[in-house]
């Protein structure tokens, strides 16, 4: 069976988009082959470089298999009259291009019909591929695409320059972007310019290898790792700093990678590590070298898209660029010290936070107040927070936005502020430890940047980070700019996830609703408030947004089953730490028989109560124990008396003990449903029984709504 190769040759695709596009193309080709019955479970090999995406499918059929199909025609009654075929039968036969006498009788549950068995010839693979692949290529998702042949032509990530499409030795004549597929690929731009014929699909990667292109991304990664190791070995005791995302980037910036070791003047090591690494990694895409203790060494590794640097020219060039960058950084650092952070607060008036929410000066004032409120709340709940540290850190937190260093290296915002705060004597009266704590809080204010990132180290840093994020979320929501669907231009979900993670990991007694009503209140009377959306239920919108984020955190970060999360959050979603404790307790009992049974019973109770309300049956306001008649209901009423104990245990947050109590409800509840009919005709009895169930539900749903628990096999 033949192999099939598709290669899309392009101008350089952005590194960040290559992997997913390659995977999507592979999936599309695989699905197409299966859908069109050209292969079952095709073996797909995938290739990608900055200039190409390719898929090699092995053992593809050269044509679809022929199929025999039974076609149903008119009913027999219509098809034959007096034993002779009617025009209807003749028309059916003509349509299928078979003689009338070859038609057969088909019996279906609906009656007898005229039918025919027809053989459908499978279409050649080349024809189907040529027809369908252009649509698949055009369908690839790109975060950003472009026109190059004018507005009436196609869009793609970058201009497509060649296409190779081969079924064994034959060209599959497809066309995309005005380019007809052929056998000609291209090798490395510089090392092997010109057209590169591909004989057969299976020759693909070896042909490219000869033209200085390592087509497999995985192989390039291996090569780069080896080359990084080899270059590092020339420096005794050194190792290169592992950096997964940088490695992915350079894999996707090269077709034929090699590595060069460069050095810089050790005197630059006086600059902060963060600055050095940012310049090397983010701006130059270099790997940093460190010694066994993790201290930076005055060397770097650059990954090249060529076969080496025998003359040292490339190393020399890269060293020159890095020197200029480091010189710039040092120049900026020194310039910045001329105006200390505390003198920069006022300069924030000229830095926009958001066009309707005012300047960073305004934000600073709000965050400072909000930070104080949070500190107070935490202190009154028994946490120890140095409010003074929060206050001062909040005041200076955004001042680094006015520094040259942050203007140049924006990704260092916060970090630069923290470093400067420590480097500058903020206030001679402050004890050194306090100054250090202020610096750390400023340094950590944007943490966590993702769910994998750590939270601020200190509780003061945590408070500052929460206040900053809550202020942004509150302002944006009030402006009606909440995230919708996949659109979240202000990264509010990330901010909210960060708040949840910080509260959870620092175990802060900080209710969400209060946090956001306080954050919203800081905008009161501001210019920004005039632009807020009218008639908008802010509290509700924020609560449901934050509940979603908490759900995400519990499920995806903490690994709780979704039904446990739903059950726990249905009871309460305002207190993050408490929700986690309850989720842990519920997770413990979730599999037990008692709780499976209780869960089923609670679902039933909810249904009964719902139906009762829907059919306007009255539910007694209070349970009247004397009006209970049956034994089973009396026993259930007695069992419910453990409610006060459960309440006490809940207060103590002793959830396992509380749940152990609740598990004892199983027997009386089950017995109740076995023996007692709730919806009886006697209105008083019925109302009282409904009240019994309502009480049960109310009393025992404060830890979790057990009806949300999914029971096995039901």
């Amino acid at each position, binding site marked *: 069976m033949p192999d099939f190769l598709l290669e899309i040759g392009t*101008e*350089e695709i*952005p*590194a*960040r988009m290559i992997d997913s596009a390659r995977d999507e193309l592979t999936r599309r080709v695989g699905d197409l082959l299966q859908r069109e019955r050209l292969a079952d479970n095709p073996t797909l090999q995938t290739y990608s470089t*900055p200039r190409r995406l390719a898929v090699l499918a092995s053992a593809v059929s050269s044509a679809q298999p022929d199929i025999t199909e039974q076609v149903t025609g008119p009913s027999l009654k219509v098809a034959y009259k007096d034993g002779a075929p009617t025009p209807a039968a003749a028309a059916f036969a003509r349509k299928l291009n078979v003689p009338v006498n070859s038609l057969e009788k088909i019996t279906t549950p609906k009656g007898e019909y005229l039918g025919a068995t027809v053989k459908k010839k499978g279409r050649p693979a080349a024809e189907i591929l040529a027809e369908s692949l252009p649509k698949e290529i055009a369908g690839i998702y790109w975060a*950003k*695409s*472009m*026109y*190059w*042949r*004018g*507005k*009436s032509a196609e869009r793609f990530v*970058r*201009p497509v*320059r060649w296409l190779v499409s081969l079924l064994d030795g034959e060209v599959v004549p497809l066309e995309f972007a005005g380019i007809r597929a052929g056998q000609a690929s291209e090798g490395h*731009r*510089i*090392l092997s310019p010109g057209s590169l014929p591909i004989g057969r699909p299976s020759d693909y990667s070896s042909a490219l290898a000869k033209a200085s292109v390592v087509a497999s991304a995985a192989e390039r990664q291996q090569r780069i790792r080896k080359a990084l190791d080899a270059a590092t070995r020339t420096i005794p005791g050194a190792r290169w700093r592992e950096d997964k995302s940088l490695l992915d980037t350079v894999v996707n*910036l*090269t077709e034929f990678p090699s590595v060069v070791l460069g050095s810089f003047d050790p005197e630059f090591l006086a600059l902060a590590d963060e600055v050095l690494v940012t310049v090397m990694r983010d701006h*130059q895409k*270099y790997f940093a070298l460190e010694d066994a203790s993790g201290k930076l060494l005055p060397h770097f590794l*650059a990954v*090249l*898209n*060529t076969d080496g*640097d025998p*003359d*040292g*020219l*490339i190393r*020399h*060039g*890269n060293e*020159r*660029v*890095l*020197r*200029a960058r480091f*010189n*710039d950084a040092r*120049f900026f650092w020194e310039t910045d010290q001329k105006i200390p952070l505390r003198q920069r607060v006022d300069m924030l*008036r*000229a*830095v*926009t936070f958001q*066009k309707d929410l*005012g*300047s960073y000066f305004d934000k600073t004032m709000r965050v400072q107040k909000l930070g104080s409120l949070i500190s107070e709340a935490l202190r009154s709940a028994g946490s120890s927070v140095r409010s003074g540290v929060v206050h001062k850190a909040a005041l200076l937190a955004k001042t680094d936005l006015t520094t040259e260093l942050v203007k140049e290296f924006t990704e260092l915002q916060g970090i630069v502020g923290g470093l400067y705060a420590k480097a500058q004597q903020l206030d001679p009266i402050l004890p050194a430890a306090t100054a250090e704590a202020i610096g750390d809080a400023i340094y950590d204010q944007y943490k966590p940047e993702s769910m994998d990132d750590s939270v601020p180290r200190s509780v003061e840093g945590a408070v500052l980070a929460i206040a900053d994020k809550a202020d942004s979320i509150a302002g944006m929501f009030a402006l009606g700019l909440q995230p919708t669907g996949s659109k979240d231009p202000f990264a509010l979900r990330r901010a909210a996830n960060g708040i949840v993670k910080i509260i959870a990991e620092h175990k802060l007694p900080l209710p969400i609703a209060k946090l956001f009503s306080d954050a919203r209140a800081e905008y009161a009377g501001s210019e920004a408030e005039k632009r807020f959306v009218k008639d908008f239920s802010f509290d509700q919108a924020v609560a449901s947004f934050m509940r979603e984020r908490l759900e995400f955190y519990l499920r995806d970060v903490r690994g709780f089953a979704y039904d446990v999360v739903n059950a726990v959050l249905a009871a309460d979603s305002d207190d993050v730490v408490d929700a986690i404790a309850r989720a842990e307790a519920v997770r413990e009992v979730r599999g037990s028989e008692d709780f499976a049974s209780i869960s089923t019973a609670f679902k039933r109770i909810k249904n009964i109560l719902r139906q009762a309300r829907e059919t306007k049956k009255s539910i007694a306001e209070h349970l009247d124990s004397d009006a209970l008649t049956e034994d089973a209901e009396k026993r259930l009423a007695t069992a419910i008396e453990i409610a006060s104990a459960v309440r006490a245990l809940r207060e103590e947050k002793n959830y396992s003990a509380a749940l152990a109590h609740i598990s004892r409800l199983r027997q009386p509840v089950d017995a109740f449903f076995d023996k007692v009919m709730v919806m009886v005709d006697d209105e008083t009895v019925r109302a009282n029984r409904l009240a019994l169930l309502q009480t049960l539900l109310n009393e025992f749903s404060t830890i979790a709504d057990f009806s949300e628990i999914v029971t096995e096999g039901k």
Partner: protein
Amino acid sequence: MNYRVKGPEECRSGLSPAYQENHLSSSQNPLTFQQLVLRLQNFWADHGCVLQQPYDVEVGAGTMAPETFLRVLGPKPYRVGYVQPSRRPADGRYGENPNRLFKHLQFQVILKPPPVNVQELYLESLSALGIDLRKHDIKFEEDNWESPTLGAWGIGWQVMLDGLEITQFTYFQQCGGIDLDPISAELTYGLERITAFLQDVDSIYDITWVVSPDGRPVKYGEIRLQDELQFSVYNFERADVEKAWKHLGLYEAECQALLDEYAAVKLQSPVDSGEKRKAKSEEPAHDSGEEQMAKSERPTAIRRFPVLAAFDLCLKCSHLFNILDARGAISVTERVGVIARIRALAVGVAKAYVDQQKAEENSAPTEEKGSAKAEQLSAAGL
């Protein structure tokens, strides 16, 4: 200022012997700054570009010169190359920073539409500068360009040569808020950076601009340092904020007035489309003599309309905005608003320009038939 002129030996003293042998000996003398410009001009002239001269109104980038901003609009193919001094007042460093300039020089190439081998052509242009690509590391890294002030954006790369960004390569998608068709490729070479790289100097001011007849290298600093220092002083310290606002307002008002006037002229002269012509010819009786005369004058009124002057006024606004920004005179609330105002002008000019081009095209055949007036105009160099 500690600036001093170094001798040619001193320039190269930091180089490893291997570097000197392999790099410098291969191209005996690296190109001087002006040789570099000449090579680029020759290269692109050979590839069908009109060689333009720098635009003589302050711009922040070669893109803002009309040879790019306006020429990329509309359907007419065009190829042009030119040096453009680009002024960015806030980037000034009083000549103290070896890598930053208030005014740097770009070589700008527009290829409309881009040929299929546009990347190869670009790489050839590097070879023309004496860069042996086989000995260097070249990468095209994603870098998309956007100018909110111009309502313009494009998709492309920064071209990296041994870790140094030497060119911005952009496929323009929109300009002045108008979707482009055809697309133009824009190549922006950073001339100082490339020369500093070729000459292996760490400071822009040490670039050899030209070697004088007596063999003495004339350095970039000799020619430009004073400029950098004095304009930094002006832009950061001396520019009169109040007057600059006033100037901005005046230029804006004049630009806007022109745009409004164009719209009015336009209204009086409906597009000379076939449909309209037909509609009119059906009712010849209603055409008074006066109206007929006006009709024949209308295309001329449109053609003569100074849309290009309106663009210059818009550029003036942009430059004044940059000066005010460098002076720290633009508050948060003002900033967004002023950018929007200038953008509105740029978008207005772009629209008028496209419209004018269209009108010109539609009326071209009749004009050619022998309008004495048109001939007179062209004879006068207008």
